[in-house]
């Protein structure tokens, strides 16, 4: 039977005490009362035990002096009884104290010797009372040495704590001692080899039934690896943040719905976003992000983003983004979704590269290319003309000189007809030579003539637009193609048709340069007319023609570096294909040039006449 509660113990003590009192009165033998004293001492406490000793002394004196055996023997016996009762009380008091701690160690409290890690206990005043073998082993002292340390100075154990941690630990320990709050502390403790390792120290106060602190029981857990890992983790995180903030790239994160919620420092600095003043993260609307782009790019950016977010596909686009100084710079933006195992998008990772310098370099390179190409074309044309002029000038010079001689022999006095006749022969030879030069030049250019065959003008238009893609981009011209998907094939010289379309598109682009209009758009329409022709119209939004009829004249140009040959050549080509080329001004602004050629002209196109041959030379080069 176990009597665990105070009440039960007291009841049992009272019952045994009462029984022993009754037995003493019944047998007139006061020594039985010693049982009652012992029970009260053990079960209730030593103060109660002292009262019991006094009560038992009084009761035994009543018993002894009421007996017939007389006062002499009674007084002696009473004295012996009291001494015995006191002795009993004293012995019980000692053992009761000892057994109390045993009970705490083995019962309600943890067994410090067995707990993992370093175990310790302390007196209520904070002095160290016990350390477990693991702790002794850790700090590298024997039990006897530890006992000397514990008995010596009150806080001699602090020698095992890292000097930097002693002060804070002591302050917390004193605080715990005063308030009785559980100890949760982290400190570095010295190992036997002199190295310090981090420990987490947890301890609770043990209290008696009155709530008084009877001691402290603590355990120290080695958290050094954890601590180091945490430090390393923090370091890595710092490194990572440093990396994210210093890589020469703008990095940002967005929620699956496309709400930006993180920008790296470089991005913040670049775009001039104030991270602190910015609305709470994740609430910054996607729409407002789009507004950072150049007005011309917004629609395209929005479309690309929305498509990408809707489909969850990685995204790449280029656009002009507003920097903090208000300048728009070209950026190359790339996004990748991060997905969980189920494929759900967790967030979007984005990087922006500032490619403005490259784009501008490319642009200027392209412009330089164009200038160079133009210069080369001009050079080759003038070279060609010089060489043609030289070829023709030689026989012409001979004709002129011989004619002069011819005249002089005839007008001489007397006229020398023999010489004149000889010179006249030479003049005829010189004129023949000149005609041969012209024939050679013609032959040279007729070599490039291609055989007419069935071609799709839509294909021609697309190829030319591809060819001029860079020019269109750099001059900011938007292409507006309306190609008839059921356009019949027509028989024509593919290269010549390309030349015509190229010339018309180029003219359209150039017509819109240096014109302040909102939208530079070039409209190209192909259509099948009922009269058996196909028609291609190129319409720009430039200033229009001041004189639509003159533009087809050779050497008529409105361009500073133009030869004035382009449209004349185009018209020759189209007319050689039995078609028509005409120009109009558009009422809403701009100019329109249209050509139409018959669908079946294959039989009629055999040769491009010699008259167009030299203009075609211009078409290839201009």
């Amino acid at each position, binding site marked *: 039977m176990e009597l665990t509660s105070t009440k039960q113990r007291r009841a049992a003590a009272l019952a045994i005490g009462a029984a022993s009192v009754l037995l003493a009165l019944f047998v007139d033998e006061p020594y039985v009362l010693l049982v009652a004293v012992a029970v009260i001492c053990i079960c209730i406490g030593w103060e109660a035990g002292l009262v019991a000793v006094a009560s038992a002394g009084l009761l035994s004196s009543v018993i002894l002096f009421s007996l017939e055996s007389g006062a002499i023997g009674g007084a002696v016996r009473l004295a012996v009884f009291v001494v015995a009762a006191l002795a009993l009380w004293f012995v019980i008091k000692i053992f009761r104290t000892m057994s109390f701690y045993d009970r705490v160690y083995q019962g309600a409290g943890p067994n410090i010797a067995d707990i993992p890690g370093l175990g310790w206990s302390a007196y209520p005043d904070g002095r160290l009372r016990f350390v477990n073998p693991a702790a002794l082993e850790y700090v590298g002292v024997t039990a006897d040495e530890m006992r000397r340390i514990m008995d010596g100075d009150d806080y001699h154990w602090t020698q095992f704590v890292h000097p930097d941690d002693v002060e804070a630990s002591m302050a917390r320990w004193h605080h715990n001692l005063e308030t009785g709050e559980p100890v949760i502390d982290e400190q570095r403790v010295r190992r036997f080899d002199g190295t310090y390792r981090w420990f987490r120290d947890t301890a609770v106060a043990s209290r008696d039934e009155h709530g008084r602190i009877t001691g402290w029981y603590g355990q120290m857990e080695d958290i050094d690896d954890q601590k180091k890992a945490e430090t390393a983790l923090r370091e890595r995180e710092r490194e990572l943040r440093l990396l994210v903030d210093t890589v020469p790239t703008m990095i940002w994160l967005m929620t699956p719905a496309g709400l930006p919620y993180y920008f790296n420092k470089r991005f913040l600095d670049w775009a001039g976003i104030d991270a602190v003043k910015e609305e709470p993260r994740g609430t910054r609307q996607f729409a407002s992000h789009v507004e950072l782009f150049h007005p011309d790019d917004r629609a395209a950016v929005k479309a690309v983003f929305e498509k990408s977010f809707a489909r969850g596909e990685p995204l790449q686009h280029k656009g002009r983004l507003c920097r903090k100084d208000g300048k728009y710079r070209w950026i190359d933006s790339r996004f990748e979704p991060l997905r969980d195992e189920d494929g759900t998008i967790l967030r979007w990772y984005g990087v922006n590269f500032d490619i403005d310098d490259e784009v501008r370099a490319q642009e200027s390179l392209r412009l330089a290319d164009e200038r160079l190409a133009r210069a080369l074309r001009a050079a080759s044309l003038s070279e060609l003309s010089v060489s043609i002029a030289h070829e023709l000038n030689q026989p012409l*010079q*001979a004709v002129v*000189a011989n004619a*002069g001689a011819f005249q002089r022999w005839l007008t001489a006095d007397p006229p020398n007809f023999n010489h004149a006749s000889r010179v006249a022969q030479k003049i005829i030879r010189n004129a023949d030579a000149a005609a041969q030069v012209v024939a050679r030049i013609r032959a040279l250019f007729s070599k490039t003539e291609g055989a007419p065959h069935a071609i799709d003008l839509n294909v021609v238009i697309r190829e030319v637009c591809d060819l001029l893609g860079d020019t269109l981009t750099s001059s900011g011209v938007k292409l507006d193609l309306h190609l008839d998907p059921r356009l019949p094939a027509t028989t024509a010289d593919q290269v010549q048709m390309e030349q015509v379309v190229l010339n018309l598109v180029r003219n359209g682009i150039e017509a819109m340069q240096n014109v302040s209009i909102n939208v530079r758009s070039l409209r190209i329409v192909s259509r099948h007319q009922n009269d058996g022709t196909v028609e291609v119209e190129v319409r720009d939004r430039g200033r229009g023609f001041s004189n639509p009829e003159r533009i087809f004249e050779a050497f008529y140009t409105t361009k500073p570096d133009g030869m004035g040959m382009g449209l004349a050549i185009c018209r020759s080509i189209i007319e050689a294909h039995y078609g028509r080329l005409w120009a109009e001004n558009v009422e809403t602004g701009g100019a329109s040039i249209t050509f139409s050629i018959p669908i079946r002209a294959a039989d009629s196109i055999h040769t491009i006449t010699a008259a167009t041959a030299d203009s075609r030379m211009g078409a290839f080069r201009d």
Partner: protein
Amino acid sequence: MGVATSGIAESPVAIVIDDDAAVRDALEELLNSVGIDTISFSSGQEVLDATLPDRPSCLVLDVRMPGLSGLDLQNLLASKGIRTPIVFLTGHGDIAMSVEAMKAGAVDFLTKPVRDQTFLDAVSTAIATDVARRAASTASRNSVALYETLTPREREVLKLVVSGAMNKQIASDLGISEITVKLHRSNMMKKMNARSISHLINVWHSFPADIR
């Protein structure tokens, strides 16, 4: 080829250089019709290799030729001390080129096809220039020959006379008597065919630098 038929030593000759045979022939025909003898070459190198006749002449030079260009030939001839006047002909008028040619001493720079009269005028001018040049050069050569006949003392006297010294001064400079100076001076003037002191000074200035 095309060697002049005239035997008269001082009749002018035009030297035509053009790579085009028809042009060459026609120009010769034209020049011959006005009585100018011609020699022709088809390249600049042929001109350099040939010995040019010692007659009043001019070069009719095409700028554009394979191998040596007309301008190259002009420079090479100048470096050899041949100062025959040049009339350039070119297929295309290039201002920079014509300026260069004129600076180097060309008489004219004509663009093909050139009118016959313009061409003949240019050639006449060039030949006239050469006649004058040759006359000056011949006079100089003759004076030098006369100078060679002077005694050393007469040469000394000549040098002092053209520098403007009086007889008395010459006598003291040379350490001889004034009478002897007058004698040397008179002999010197006779040998040099000098009619007057000013004539003598002109002849002196036409002398090559090494004599002076």
